[in-house]
């Protein structure tokens, strides 16, 4: 097995699927000859040509609007939005059109596609290269939302997303694009959507995280372990549909939950997780559910590490949960 980083894993998934199915086309800004600003589509233009790896005009709404048409026609587009922060011009096409085609046509039309987009902070990108807009899309019926944290899942989840028949927002944690490395099979394989993963077992508290924050949660769990606290860390992987059963069984076991994400707190995905845990684990809870999140401010430039959750803030929440 090869050792890959997340970019290489994404590239490997795209390549494998494009070889398997000639309906798959990649389109976006700078994805062709240049291979993408993060190199995720590197070499695809050379292998598959300009009709399948397409440089587009600089218009996100046009990329998604056109990709919807391609999908209606029977292609399997995998558009890239260069940064999740730039996805908003396409918001109407995504939430009102893409997400609704199957439903509003009574199942006559489908628009299967995977919108890949790097998200998240910690790369000195300021407000417009750091955002985590997952909540908007999780809140939109008709979209699946996937956030891998490691190369193996990035390839397996992307492969599943491309093979599925629903529109998927595939958010790639750019902070750990290169830092997260691991063994990944070179041949295609699937990691099913809708299944979370226990990244570390524990019995005292459940940490729920996804994407880049999974690594921060694991770091906190390691430090906690040195203090005799065993934190169970769950990598959600798919935010919608959510693996509610795994979350519930873990929280019922530990009696405590700390949710970690870098998006702002108010109406962030943590609010939904907290509500679900309240509904389904009430009699098992030893402490209130805690949220460690980005603050309810625009994403800052200079103070981004103050903004982003770190192991210290997670450990503070763990302490509160244990000493309630």
């Amino acid at each position: 097995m090869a050792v890959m980083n997340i970019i290489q894993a994404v590239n490997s998934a795209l390549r494998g699927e494009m070889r398997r199915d000639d309906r798959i086309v990649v389109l976006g800004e700078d994805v062709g000859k240049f291979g993408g600003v993060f190199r995720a589509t590197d070499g695809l233009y050379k292998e598959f040509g300009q009709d399948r790896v397409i440089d587009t005009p600089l218009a996100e709404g046009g990329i998604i609007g056109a990709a919807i048409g391609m999908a209606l026609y029977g292609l399997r587009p995998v558009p890239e939005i260069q940064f999740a922060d730039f996805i908003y011009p396409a918001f109407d096409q995504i939430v009102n059109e893409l997400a609704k085609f199957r439903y509003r046509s009574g199942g006559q039309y489908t628009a299967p596609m995977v919108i890949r987009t790097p998200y998240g902070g910690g790369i000195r990108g300021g407000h417009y290269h750091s955002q985590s807009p997952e909540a908007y899309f999780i809140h939109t019926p008709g979209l699946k939302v996937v956030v891998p944290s490691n190369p193996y899942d990035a390839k397996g989840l992307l492969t599943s997303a491309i093979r599925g028949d629903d529109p998927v927002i595939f958010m790639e944690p750019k902070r750990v694009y290169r830092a997260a490395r691991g063994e990944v099979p070179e041949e295609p394989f699937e990691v099913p959507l809708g299944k979370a993963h226990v990244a570390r077992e524990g019995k005292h508290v459940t940490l729920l995280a996804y994407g880049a924050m999974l690594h921060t949660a694991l770091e906190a769990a390691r430090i906690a372990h040195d203090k005799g606290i065993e934190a169970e860390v769950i990598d959600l992987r798919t935010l919608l549909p959510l693996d509610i059963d795994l979350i519930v069984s873990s929280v019922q076991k530990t009696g405590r939950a700390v949710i970690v994400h870098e998006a702002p707190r108010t109406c962030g995905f943590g609010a939904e997780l907290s509500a679900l845990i309240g509904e389904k684990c009430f009699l098992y809870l030893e402490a209130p559910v805690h949220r460690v999140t980005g603050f309810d401010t625009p994403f800052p430039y200079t103070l981004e590490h103050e903004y982003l959750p770190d192991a210290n803030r997670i450990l503070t929440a763990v302490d509160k949960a244990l000493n309630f």
Partner: protein
Amino acid sequence: VSSGAAGPEGEQIMAENAIETAAELGRIRKDDLVPDLVQVLREDGTLRSRVEPKIPPADLKRLYGLMVLCRQLDHRMMNLQRQGRIGFYMTATGEEAAIVGSVYALEPTDWILPCYREYAAALYRGYPLRDFICQLLGNAEDITKGRQMPIHIAVRALNFGSVSSPVGTQIPQAMGIAWAAKLRGDPTVALAYFGDGATSQGDFHVAANFAGVYKAPVIFLCRNNGWAISTPASVQTAAETFAQKAVAYGIEGVRVDGNDLLAVYEVTKRAAERARAGLGATLIEAVTYRRGAHSSSDDPSVYRDEAEPRAWEEKDPMVRLRRYLERKKLWSDRDEERALQEAQREVHKALEEAEAIPPPPPASLFDDVFADLPPHLVEQRQELLDAIKSKGR
């Protein structure tokens, strides 16, 4: 004139009086951009163009008959809306030629992405009237399963898209369909219908731009009917025509009398031929007029002079086509009477059948959100079914 020098691209630039002359030379002359209005039939039904479009007589009669049906349908459905039997309605009165003439110019395999006044294009392709009325009622036999407001139809089997209320969203989608067909090597054209108001949306501009860049076989058919709800076309653009917007995107722009079915047919046919020949997209501005209200929810007497729609009655697209047919001895008063009666009978029968059909079953609310029902929707569906069971407890 001073001696010239080669510019960066090799073209000649002026050395002296550079600012004045360059400003003059570089000015885009508006007159060069404004296309003439294409007209084939005069209002009296005589031919203006030297060449008569070759449409078989049976087809001409069929197209006219469809217009009779649509006019009748609009009249009847609007009344039904007033009686509270359907929730909402939108008419195409006065714009029938722009719709029927353009769909007739396409192949059945070509795609149509509609705005919300083009149900006639679906009927032309064989969408049963009964299905249309089932959609208006949102009943159990509505093929869109009661999911959208009346008029928001979708007919996959006829390559007829899905009506969306947000204005202009279908335009880049049509571009994408056309582009996909081109990439697959299929001789398929996509046509997007939209109104003058939609040209103010970003979606129109990105679609036109993409279409230009990729030479996509797409036709943008703008029904310039003068009004977007209460907003006149003069508030949508400062350009003299909508067709001239094509120039900046490197696509073809045509301006046609939208109340002249033959002219609409001719320009659409030509646009489709260009598209199929690999010459790219065409923006067609069909100049017409929205004689009725925007929808059953507004009253145009509040925002426009009633003399205006009256004046456009004189340019009625059906009257013009009928005069042409009469001159060709293809249509008589008796034909008119028969067509009208048949339309009334058809509408009555379809309505009677459709009104007897119950609403869709409650559990169907959860179908088609995704390909498969995820766990949280299984749970919510049960919640609804339990709630229904416990009603009146």
